[in-house]
């Protein structure tokens, strides 16, 4: 299936969880937050939340800002 992650299309197998996605990007141990289709999915739901074809995912962290 195709999903949009941080603005770019990615191919992933069906049934991909958010945890799987973070793992695929080496982000499992990094403080970050995930939004699917503009709704925050909190960390305790990352294992159980299965992504769907066409989902728009944002994975964000903290950067320098004012």
């Amino acid at each position, binding site marked *: 299936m195709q999903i949009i992650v941080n603005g770019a299309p990615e191919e992933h197998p069906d049934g991909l969880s958010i945890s799987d996605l973070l793992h695929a*990007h080496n982000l499992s141990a*990094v403080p970050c*937050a995930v939004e699917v289709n503009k709704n925050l999915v909190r960390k305790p739901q990352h294992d159980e939340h299965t992504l769907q074809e066409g989902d728009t995912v944002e994975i964000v*962290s903290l*950067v*320098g*800002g*004012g």
Partner: protein
Amino acid sequence: MTTTETAAVEPMSLAGRTFNSRLFVGTGKYPDHATMTAALDASGAEVITVAVRRERLYNEQGESLLDAIDTSRYTILPNTAGCFDPEDAVRVSRLGREILEQMGNPGASWVKLEVLGDKKTLLPDPTGTLEACKTLVADGFQVLCYSSDDPIAALRLKEAGAASVMPAGSPIGSGQGILNPANIVLILDLLKEHDPTYPVIVDAGVGTASDVTLAMELGADGVLLNTGIAHAQDPVRMAHAMRHALDAGLLAYRSGRIAKRKYASASSPWEGVIAHIPGE
């Protein structure tokens, strides 16, 4: 006679917590992480602002901000910079909270709310800011709310439950200082009228130390700044300057300055002068 036991600057209460430093500094625009951490240290700040941005998934970027900073030392205040409508600002606020909760940082329920109105001025949209503020307050956030220096816009944000209203001295990063001190004074009057400890923090536009001193002399509770330090030629030294400037302004405000007079008032006594004084 009036004396003072100490020159200590009294702590500030903000969103239910107490801070010894009234200087709030950003983490953006530094030439490198080492300069940033040295400047944060020199500033004495206890609260630092950060932005919420997409992870860079493909190109490695070396050390991340969170690796560079001793996060146990600071309250991390995520902002909604870059948001132009209330919905986006609410999304970003929740994402920031999610990260800070994972880190166990006390800034987890806090947000520096910016809902911008225009890309050239980066001034806030009054109606959009008010709407987002209401939503975030209802969602349990402590909203530190960026505002223009429009006194009524600021008052509405306080009425909506903002933990602090933070009026701009001048546009973000412009270095123009406090363009309209009279408006800052009106904001302080209106927001503190029946609530004298309500915190008002001047945010944005600070270019140099005297801007910070002036803000505090007007009666502000604190100052938030970023570019004035980060883009100075010597950021660490400027951070020291800003810390002194804040203490100078707060102490001066508490000291009861002399009134301005049109004419002079001699510092030395007229009595006992041996010189010829005209007309005498």
